[in-house]
């Protein structure tokens, strides 16, 4: 058995042992089920949420806000990043704002977005957009600034002008940087949507989580935490698939041979 397989088996065994231990201790009354309900109870709540179809409206709200926020944030980050890297006065104006936004925990803007945009979807999307756009802005801006000068010289000595440089060097180089940040961006978009819902909303996983917390429903809280983890992981895998597809030049197996 390879080391990786052995490690996977060890992890699975440890996880199952932990769940069984938690279940046993909770049932035996060693830990208070009010604070830490047994895994079987958490699982029952998850199943109920789906069987009674109560979860779907919340899932729809959170996914919509996350994905729209991700798309708009990506587009905005790319446009602003290119503008700042290629037009000096844009960089002068944008860099301090972006540095400031990058330095603060951007979720503190959530109450302001609620005041400005109301408790419905737009305030959640706005928070996801801000979280994603700042990340992508720096990916693009640094991607262009750190572009391999040798490749620029190569294309110029082959006779390429600005358009060819943009197409052959800058855009692919920036794409690699942006895709490298895509997984983090997906997590940020989901965070933006959930935190926005947590602050003030009428539906969404964040809203449901806030409801569970205010009613001291630990089983529902845990069920939602696991659900959010599962969905973020699912989006992570989708982002990774996109990255591998678009950066296949980087991932394809190495077959180097002697000259």
């Amino acid at each position: 058995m390879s080391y990786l397989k052995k490690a996977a088996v060890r992890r699975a065994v440890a996880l199952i042992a932990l769940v069984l231990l938690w279940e046993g201790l909770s049932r035996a009354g060693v830990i208070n089920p009010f604070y830490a309900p047994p895994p079987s109870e958490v699982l029952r709540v998850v199943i109920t949420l789906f069987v009674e179809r109560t979860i779907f409206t919340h899932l729809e709200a959170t996914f919509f806000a996350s994905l729209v926020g991700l798309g708009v944030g990506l587009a905005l980050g790319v446009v602003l990043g290119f503008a700042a890297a290629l037009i000096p006065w844009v960089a002068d104006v944008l860099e301090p704002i972006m540095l400031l936004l990058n330095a603060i925990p951007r979720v503190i803007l959530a109450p302001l977005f609620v005041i400005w945009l109301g408790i419905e979807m737009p305030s959640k999307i706005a928070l996801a957009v801000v979280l994603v756009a700042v990340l992508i802005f720096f990916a693009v801006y640094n991607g262009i600034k750190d572009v391999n000068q040798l490749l620029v010289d190569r294309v110029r000595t082959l006779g390429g002008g600005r358009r060819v440089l943009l197409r052959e060097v800058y855009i692919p180089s920036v794409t690699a940087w942006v895709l490298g940040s895509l997984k983090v961006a997906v997590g940020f978009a989901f965070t933006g949507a959930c935190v926005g819902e947590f602050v003030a909303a009428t539906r969404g996983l964040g809203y449901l989580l806030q409801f569970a917390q205010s009613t001291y429903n630990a089983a529902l809280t845990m069920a939602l935490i696991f659900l959010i983890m599962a969905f973020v992981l699912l989006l992570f895998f989708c982002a990774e698939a996109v990255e591998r597809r678009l950066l296949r030049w980087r991932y394809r197996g190495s077959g180097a041979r002697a000259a």
Partner: protein
Amino acid sequence: MLRVIDLAVGYNHEPVIEKINLEVGAGSFVSLVGPSGSGKTSILRAVSGLLAPRAGRVELEGGSGSLGFLFQDDALLPWRSARENVALGLRIRKYSRPAAESEADGWLRRLGLGGFGGRFPHELSGGQRKRVAIAQILALKPKLLLMDEPFASLDAIVRTRITQELLDWVEREHLSVLLVTHDLEEALTVSDRIYLLSEGPPARVIRSYDVPIPRPRDIFSSRKHADFNPLLERLWRDMSAAMNLSEAAAAR
């Protein structure tokens, strides 16, 4: 083919080279040797137009379109296959994609890389990448090759093999070459003329040497030519003297 007249270049306020005069005749192989940091690469960059001269001028027959520049690093686009990399220069010259790629395949075959066209640079060995870079340049049918220590990173066997192949190609096609190298033996083996630069900055040409070894050349038999060792000794002595002189100046 190429005349460099009173050329001076620098970065910011620092002069790197000044009053450089040199000539590369049609079909001749010229090398620039000198201590590290003497601005050899800057001369090539100025000739290719990558660097604007502060003074002097570059006269090039056929303009920049007749130039091919082989860098020390292979500088292939990592997101393009070997075929697309070779085709890039042709596409810039308005070849259609199928025409450029079929031409690129022909060049890859000629350089012993038939069947490797679909591979990305990271899937090739150092020697193979270097051949792709050579194919990329030769596909544009340059009249003058600028080479900046192009094989320095290769191991001895691959380096010798590729150097000989390129030498054969240059002789067969009557190409002119301006090679930058710090390897005096390599310079003597391949060149018709060698320019020695002083240790800058600012560096200048302090001497030139004609190498009377007949063509076509073979890397191994060139070294057995009667003029090879005396010339090598002279080059060594002159370069050491140039370096001692600047060390003495620095010590003062």
